[in-house]
């Protein structure tokens, strides 16, 4: 219907009162799995500062975004030029096919290597980690490390995300069983979980809900969810494991199909992400910022506070099939 198209146009903000950068023109098409509110808020802010820029947004679950993108590529081409979702391996695949445009923003120069990939292929613009969450009405003694949740206290009432569905869980699995990694908990840990009748969910959202409701006493979950939930007053708390948390990569990448105009706009958008104001916005949402300064005065930790287990991307890319197979053989499936 015509009216729908019109309202869509108003979304592609073309002018703004507080114009700051008039030269920048271009059109961004962002494919992302980030919460829609957050992305839209940022994009609107960005285009208001760069009135020459317009944008289109597609947001869905990681799997869906990937499906859409690869099907479009199968069908011929895609409009997407900014990618931002939680599948590092897939980004590498695209990079291998030469579809990714490498760009390193000035402001990310000092970022630790853990948070940037393959020489400008992509960057973390905020961080999320696999942590341990628990229901405070059911668990008196907070767990400290991964092994603590294999105790009898959690028998039949600990849950993890299923790595078959959740990219985050897959990463956690890979990091946990990587043989070269010294601090790894290894397959033993998973075997213990299996013996302890661990439950699985397809998404972190469900894990959060069920821990909050008390259906599960604890869960392995991405950090920002229990953080926000706890702030709202739910009987839930979380800990970063002492031996190290797992970073869930959610890189922001650019595609190599852009006109020069668009490219300039996309680069500016990446720069914008590392803006202190933008980083503060992430903090408000409960995320760990890339620029630690942004977290000052909040209970959100900084990347310096968090010990991260090292991750070997290549190991994950090469072995995910066999890891899943082994995982399935341990946990069985009905």
């Amino acid at each position, binding site marked *: 219907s015509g009216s729908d198209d019109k309202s869509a146009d108003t979304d592609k903000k073309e002018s703004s009162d507080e114009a700051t950068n008039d030269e920048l023109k271009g059109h961004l098409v962002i494919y992302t799995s980030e919460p829609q509110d957050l992305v839209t808020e940022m994009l609107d802010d960005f285009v208001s500062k760069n009135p020459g820029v317009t944008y289109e947004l597609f947001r869905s679950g990681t799997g869906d975004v990937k*499906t859409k993108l690869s099907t479009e590529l199968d069908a011929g081409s895609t409009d997407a030029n900014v990618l931002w979702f939680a599948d590092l391996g897939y980004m590498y695949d695209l990079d291998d096919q030469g579809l990714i445009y490498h760009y390193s923003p000035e402001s990310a120069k000092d970022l630790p290597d853990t948070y940037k990939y393959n020489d400008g292929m992509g960057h973390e613009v905020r961080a999320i980690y696999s942590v341990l969450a628990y229901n405070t009405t059911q668990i008196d003694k907070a767990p400290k490390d991964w092994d603590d949740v294999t105790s009898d206290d959690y028998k039949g009432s600990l849950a993890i995300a299923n790595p078959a569905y959740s990219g985050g869980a897959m990463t956690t699995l890979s990091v946990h069983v990587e043989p070269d990694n010294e601090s790894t908990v290894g397959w033993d840990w998973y075997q213990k979980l299996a013996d302890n009748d661990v439950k699985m969910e397809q998404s972190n959202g469900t894990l959060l809900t069920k821990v909050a409701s008390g259906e599960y006493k604890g869960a392995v979950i991405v950090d920002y969810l229990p953080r926000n939930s706890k702030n709202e007053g739910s009987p839930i708390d979380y800990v970063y494991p002492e031996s190290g948390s797992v970073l869930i990569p959610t890189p922001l990448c650019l595609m190599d199909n852009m006109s020069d105009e668009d490219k300039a706009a996309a680069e500016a958008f990446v720069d914008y992400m590392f803006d202190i104001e933008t980083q503060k916005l992430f903090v408000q949402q409960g995320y760990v910022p890339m620029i630690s300064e942004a977290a000052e005065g909040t209970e959100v930790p900084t990347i310096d506070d968090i010990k991260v287990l090292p991750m070997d991307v290549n190991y994950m890319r090469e072995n995910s099939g066999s890891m899943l197979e082994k995982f399935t053989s341990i946990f069985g499936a009905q």
Partner: protein
Amino acid sequence: MFKKNGSNSSRGSLAPTIIWWVVVAFLALSVIYPSIRLILNSLKVGDGYGLDNYVTVFSDPGILRSMKNSFIVVIPATIFSTIIGVFLSWVVVRTNVPGVKYWKRLLSIPYFIPPFIGAIAWTFLLGPVGYFNKFLMNTFGFEQAPMNIYSLGGMIFIMSMYRYAVSFIVVLPTMKRISASVEEAARISGASPWRTLRDITLPLITPSIMGAMLLTFMFILADFGVSSVLGAPNQIHLMTTQIYYMINNSTIANNLQVASAYSLFLSLFGLVGLWVYNRVLATNKFVVVSGKSAAVEPTKLNKGPRWILFAILVIFFLFTTCAPILATLITSLTKTYGLPFGPENMTFQNFAQMLQIQNVARAFKNSLFLSVTSSLVITIVTMIIAYISIRGGIRGVKGVKFMQMTVVLPYAVPGVIIALSMILAFSQPIAGVRLYNTIWILLIAYIARFMNLGYNNISGAISQVDTSLEEAARISGASQLRAFKDVMLPLLKSSLISSFFLVVAPTISELSLSSLLWSVGNETIGTIVFSAKEEGRILLTAAIAIILIILVVFINLLVNSQTDKD
């Protein structure tokens, strides 16, 4: 074929033929072309084509296991739902149970509970810490929750409790049309009301029951909400969750193609059902609306059975409808999730929050538009196809069987795969027009996916009407089209309305198609729900669900009150 004799117009109007080809063209665009793209895609191996993906489907133990699980769940759940639905519609239409008028509306409500919330609501009730289990544990002192719904049995139970409404909605109008005299003839032959139900009433609405059963079968087979929520904790995969798993799992080579192959295989089950269904419909055995009308008084039940039935309805209604909705309502009014519900933990803030979501108003508007439009289109298109395939006899009409298939089969294919075929078909401009990233692509996808709901519902109803009623109109001077409009249409009215609602409910909260095909300006409620659910914002999700239920039930009441004369 036929020699021209005089002017063509004197030989009968062309209008029906034209309508038919318009429908065919529409289906070619919305179903056939995307299907071809999908089939090609499922045959794609590397840069060439082959059957490898299908081989994978039949050699992967995970896939085979999921098929087995699906059938363990789907078959009994279909049977139970159909039995419950048919029985309830009989009680409501053919007996004098107290409050008949209200039951018609009330008993169909579970259908309007969106699946993403339905399953969750049931876990609130029957989950390990659900109200019902807690109640049982408190009253009987069980150590553990006595009911485990995270099992195949749990899925069967909940799907039956939840999906009986499909057959209730389908069968009710056809049951209403049965002329009482055939039932009376059985009573006077010595059959009790129950026996009459078994020997006369049910066989007479066989097409409808079969349609309802086929529909329920496909509904449950295609279900994602209940099976993912209940299957996840103990890793029970059904076909749909298995396909979802494959789509998400890029570690499998060709994962999308294998998933497509698997989905296409799924749709074959619909083919078998359709074949049986057509064989049954091809007879004239179910004509009950004739040109001789008899006065109707409902089957009189004695006081005892009457109140027993009433009690059954009340308990059933409380359990299947009130309880889940109440659970959802309580959740939507909770301030802090995880704390006990009470005055201090109560708030309307979730509803307020919903209003703050960007574009939420537009999403509601879009969904309403998509839902109502697709329901109308589906109702009309399926009515045309069903009518022509049952009555036949229109010159220049070809390919009826094939069109039936295109209408019935897509439903068994998971939404994601349909979306995928839409992307394959429409992401590149066709003849300079690009539907992609407009609301039309969503509309086409909705229509393609949910067409089945209309078809199986309406064809049973058409087979009930005696041809002489239309003939009487023809002989009065009405063209075939006019006769259809003046005679068939009014007689089908209540079935058409139920078709409409069969489609409205799932489309208004549609999630899996939308999450791949939406674009800015074309958000749907589904995309908002999806996002909220992923974020674990269960309170917000519940609030949206409550609004959706109210919305659909409201539309239901509105439309039905306009047309409640019969």
